[in-house]
């Protein structure tokens, strides 16, 4: 920590000059101390209700079987894996913001990283739910783990689904540890401010006896750096592995080498979008406009513009490769299953609307961020981020369902229609996610107090004697 505030010559610091240490502590910690505002309750109660819906849908699913969904032959995976990939993609923003941006010294990340990390964990929890319940016999899911057993059978290490198990569980573990380690100084802060015995004991327990000594800070900073270094490859690996589920198959539309970078870019794209959506609500509800300034939001939007362009490039590249490969099955998938050109019987491809919804949301909408007016317009960015996440859901739906529904033999072509259970499960994961998330912002410091403080102008040893606009020498991290 303790690096410079200013990233580039002439740029203003990310936090206002008058934001004092006390102000930061107060505005973050008071959320966990004061009674929840009405806005919190208005979100929390529906979220809990939806969570109930989730568990009801799960009970129904396990009782009656996968036939409660719309999946069929040939569409073996549909909303289940779409939701899995979508949620896991959302989980990417957290690690990216907290690890990669940390290593790149992007100080502005400090006001959103806690938030994003929590979102990651809760999103990965939703994601992990789907592979677990999408199996026909979920009570045998433990076959997927390399547990020594009396049957003498190991999992199939050649299967990308197996790699998923490792990638997602590793990611989940590291994300939780990273998040928790970052929380320790702030938990200690809240412990110190606590008035009741219970709060003191609870926060004290999880603060692990943090006293803020230099030695603590020394170890803490070192550990944080190491976890950041461990997490960084995970950002790339998790979604690459998820994309292998498709890329290593023989199904046209899945069998594509471009998938790993394409998926990672898409994941960051959607993750940022959801962080934004949630952040826009939270800073309104808890009045944190000064800590999460328009400047932060603008930077996030630029990120989305960049990743949106990458995703758009991947979309275009898929078409190029399909044409260039000369593979008629691959070409069919892109011309008919995706674009919806008429087939030999004269019918439109039934899923053209999904493809165009995806392109509109993921490629067209982010182009608005070229314009500063739109980039800094809070209502627009709220709408845009929601559209982007809808688009990213459609991206996975397009890849999974529209590739499967018409593959090699026209005799086995089919259609997919979701059922009420499909829909309730998906909405239910929103409820569960929001429930966890609302509990988090209610009871834990949603902004990294210590990190924000370190990024404040006052944290600069020389902040008094340097006029803004001059060029302070960057100070390396200890």
């Amino acid at each position, binding site marked *: 920590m303790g690096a410079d505030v200013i990233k580039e010559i002439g740029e203003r610091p990310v936090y206002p000059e008058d934001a004092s240490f006390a102000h930061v502590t107060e505005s973050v910690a008071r959320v966990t101390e004061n009674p929840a505002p009405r806005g919190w309750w208005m979100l929390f109660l529906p979220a809990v209700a939806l969570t109930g819906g989730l568990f009801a849908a799960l009970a129904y699913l396990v009782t009656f079987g996968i036939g409660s969904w719309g999946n069929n032959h040939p569409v073996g995976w549909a909303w289940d894996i779409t939701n899995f990939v979508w949620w896991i993609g959302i989980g990417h923003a957290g690690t990216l913001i907290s690890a990669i941006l940390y290593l790149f010294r992007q100080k502005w990340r400090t006001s959103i990283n806690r938030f994003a990390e929590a979102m990651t964990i809760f999103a990965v929890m939703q994601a992990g739910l789907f592979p677990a319940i999408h*199996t*026909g*016999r979920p009570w045998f*899911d433990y076959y997927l783990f390399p547990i020594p057993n009396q049957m003498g059978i190991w999992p*199939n290490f050649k299967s990308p*689904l197996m790699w998923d198990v490792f990638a997602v569980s590793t990611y989940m573990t590291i994300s939780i540890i990273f998040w928790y380690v970052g929380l320790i100084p702030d938990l200690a802060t809240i412990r110190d401010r606590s008035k009741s015995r219970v709060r003191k004991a609870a926060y004290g327990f999880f603060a692990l006896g943090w006293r803020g000594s230099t030695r603590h800070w020394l170890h803490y900073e070192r550990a944080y750096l190491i976890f950041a270094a461990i997490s960084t490859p995970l950002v790339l690996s998790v979604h690459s592995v998820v994309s292998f589920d498709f890329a290593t198959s023989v199904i046209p539309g899945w069998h594509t080498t471009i998938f790993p970078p394409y998926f990672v870019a898409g994941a960051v794209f959607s993750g940022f979008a959801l962080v934004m959506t949630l952040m826009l609500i939270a800073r309104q509800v808890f009045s944190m406009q000064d800590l999460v300034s328009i400047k932060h939001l603008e930077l996030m939007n630029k990120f989305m513009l960049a990743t949106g362009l990458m995703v758009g490039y991947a979309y275009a590249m898929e078409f190029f490769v399909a044409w260039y490969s000369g593979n008629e099955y691959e070409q*069919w998938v892109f011309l008919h299953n995706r674009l919806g050109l008429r087939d030999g019987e004269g019918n439109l491809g039934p899923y053209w609307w999904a493809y165009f919804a995806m392109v509109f949301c993921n490629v067209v909408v982010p182009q608005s961020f070229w314009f500063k007016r739109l980039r800094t317009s809070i209502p627009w960015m709220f709408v845009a981020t929601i559209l982007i996440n809808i688009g990213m859901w459609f991206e996975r739906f397009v890849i999974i369902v529209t590739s499967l529904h018409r593959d090699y*033999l*026209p*005799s086995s072509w089919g259609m997919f229609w979701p059922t009420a259970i499909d829909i309730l499960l998906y909405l239910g994961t929103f409820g569960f996610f929001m429930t966890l998330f609302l509990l988090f912002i209610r009871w834990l410091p949603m902004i990294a107090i210590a990190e924000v403080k370190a990024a404040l102008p006052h944290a600069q040893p020389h902040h008094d004697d340097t006029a803004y606009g001059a060029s302070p020498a960057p100070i390396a991290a200890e």
Partner: protein
Amino acid sequence: MSRRKPFEFGPAPKGTPMVWRSLEEKHRDPEETRKLAETEFPTSVVEPANLVGRRAFLGVTGASAAVAFSGCIRRPVNEILPFTEQVEYRVPGAPVHYATVAERRGEAIGLLVESHEGRPTKVEGNPVHPASKGGTDAFAQASVLDLYDPDRSPAPARRVDGAWEEASWDEFDKVLAELARSHEGNGGDGLRLLVTPSTSPSVLRMREQVRRRFPGARIHRYASVSDQNALDGARVAFGEHVRPVYALDQAQVVLALDSDFLVTETGAVRNARAFAERRRPASPQDPMSRLYVVEGTFSVTGGNADHRLRLPSSQVEAYLRALAAELVTKHGVELAEVAGAVRGGGTPKGVPARWVKVVAEELATHQGRAPILVGERQPARVHALAWALNHALGNVGASVQLVPAPTAAAGEGDADLASLAADLEAGRVRTLFILGGNPAYDAPADVNLAQGLAKDGVLSVHLSTHRDETSQLCNWHLPMTHALEQWGDLRALDGTLAIQQPLIAPLYPARSELEVTAMLAGLEAWRGYGLVRATVRAEGGVAGAFESFWRRSLHSGVVGAAGLEPLAEPAVRSSDVVAALGAAQAAQAPTKDALEVVFLVDYGLFDGRHGNNPWMLELPNTMTKTVWGNAAWLSPKTAAALGVRTDDVVRLSRQGARDIEIPVFVLPGHADWVVTLPLGWGRSSAGRYGNGVGFDVHPLRTRDGFGFASGVRLEKTSGSHKNVQSQEHSIMEGRPIAIDATREPVRTGDPRYADMPAYSDSPEFAAYRTVLATTPPLWEQVDYSGVNKWGMTIDLSACTGCNACVVACQAENNIPSVGRTHAALGRMMHWIRLDRYFVGMDEDNPLVALQPVACQQCEEAPCENVCPVNATVHSPEGLNDMSYNRCVGTRYCMNNCPYKVRKFNYLNWNTYLHSEDGEPRTYGDMPETLKMQYNPNVTVRFRGVMEKCTYCVQRIERHKVVAKREKRSLRTDEFTSACAQACPSSAITFGNLNDADAAVTRWAAVDRSYKLLAEIGTQPRTTFLGKIRNPNPAMLQGSATTEAG
């Protein structure tokens, strides 16, 4: 009769360390312990009989059955023994086969039925029986499920105030005795029997005895689907009651007029086998027959045609007259007086001139080898004219034999259904026995049985397996035995007699038609067993050696060596033919306002008799691929003109018949202005599976419009009804999937295709070859030399599309049915499916390409490496094995299967459909009887588990075990898979590719072979043989090979 000595445990040698199992044992005297052990665990209680091959095994079991049934003096000879005492040579767990026979539209199909611990589970064709030669049809395959139908009638019942009251046979016997007494008093006046046509000598004999006992009684005969017109036509032509036996393997040209001779006509199994013999060239030089089809619907046979003319059924007669005239005038064919009757008709409207000119040329060129087959739908006079032609062309006695029909015998000179209805109406009937059949459902619309049966003073008795529509109208219902539960005998088309022996005691207190007829005849010994023995005794003509003759007949499945003698020198009675022809007027061609309807024997339900059989309800119709329902088939042009589309419900109405409402199905290639209506659907009292499924078309069917009817109006209603299809996309989109080529350019050395001695060089195949290059493997190849390398070939040229393989697989592998709702969602479970594609640009005249697709058993299987739990793995013999217990159901393998042959149990299908009220339930229970059908050698799969074709691995393993015990290697083609065994046309072969003599190895090497989607690099073990079409270049004239009428 094992020749192997039982293994005996001798005394332990001195000094052997003592092994003890309990302290008592340890302290006991060792010698005493040994003795004790011996009494407790005697050696060789179960002595396997498997040093005996299949034939010997069958012989022994057949003989043992015979011994069991006849040898014991002190037991009632007609009982099947329970297993309270172990039967000699019967090994628990080893299946036993018995020979029996099944009736099919006047034909008898010899069967071998597999029985597990006394439960028949699977039907196979009897290789010895001439009608089967080892093949079966879908109906025979499905019959085993009918046996276990949970809705079969459990007991006799009497109707009291409109409700059923359970009764017993004893009670009925008393009623019968009373009836008999009263009718004997009046000579049988007012006593009527309504029966179905039968070729059983015993049944015919009993009917004769009934007639003798009650001279005043009348026997009426009716069947919705029979071969009555064919019989009548042959009688007109030859003056005798004869039936044709075609030798299609001898035919060079086959002309089928409105005849679905490959699937539903009489003798279809026999015909399919013989026809395929000459449709399966190993090289371009091999001879190949040519099939011309003229029809008003689009039958499976039409789909097999080399040239197909879409012509309304009513116009077929005019076409045949024109053809006959052409043969007489241009080719000098001698038709005597008939020539005068057919001349001057001219070519009917809508028939292209070449269809008369070229076809006549073909028939004249191949005299003796060009049979004309006429469908049952056509009136008798068309049959008669065809016989005159067949005779004049020298086909009779060469490619078709005429064999005396058993129905010509006494007992079958019966009255018809209409006269019964009239007599009922007039009060001339006091007692009516309906023995089998379901006339209340399938009678013509202008015959009203219900009204007559409801009259007071009529006592009606219905003998039937179910309490069906007819039972509902009767005073008494008697449960009838299933064919696998009864003693009987049946004569095949060629006269071969076969014994029907029971595989199981009747599941319910039921009696056979033979037995009830015998009871009516007043026989004390009315049990079927004795009656059949008496028949066989008379038939066999052996005096002293009857027992051995009986045993031989039982075990081989045929009585004696050959069938009846064919007519030596049949002569055509030209004047009778002329008389029959002259009576008819030229039929009006159908128009938009006066459509023609054609009634089609259903490919699954037949005439409705399989209406409660979920396998058949869920069997995709080969042409439409619809399941769980029927529809009115229209051609695209007709549908467009009438403004209707597939799934629109229409009302069909006709003078003198009742209206029906039925959804439309637009079928490319169907004749214009014709509506095809499949029979057998829309039953109200079929049972829990079949009630209310599909639409009953009988209200539109009248006596004068029994096969086809004209003057039908079609109106669109506002309703809509979804036709559920197992396959919704019908064209190949230019992909090399079901590959075909035409024979002629290759064979005649057309200069354009010079230097083309092989099919692989034909232009069609050559185009495919370029894309069929196999991707080189990524990994080191497994060496399969030295092991059994199982493989399959499927010859698309021989496949007729009869669906027997689909049902056979279902029976063998315990494959569940999913019901209409889930079939619509695309969750059907068939391990082998019959893909049907339309080929060609002209949607009025498409070619049909059929392709059975099961698991291809890829050597580089894409499903295997994606399974995260190793539930699907490769066997050392190269099979792609499924381990159901290990499967968690990620469905990843199914997604990654390019052939989409993996089927997932989305719900617990085993219980799903079976609740008594017909309401699907996941947590219902499966009826006990249905459990009896399951093959104990195949795991029953729970929900959440993936499944697929295993190449019948249970059969492979069973025969490997047998071979190992006999210390030998597997013999060439010792066994085969269920689909291959069922296939009547031998389109499927299965065997060891490492065995150079195996049929599969020979066919896999034929140069029209290819692997499906080989370019992906999956290296399938299944090889397809491309379809060879044999169009006549003179017919083609650069256009499609089928044409509009």
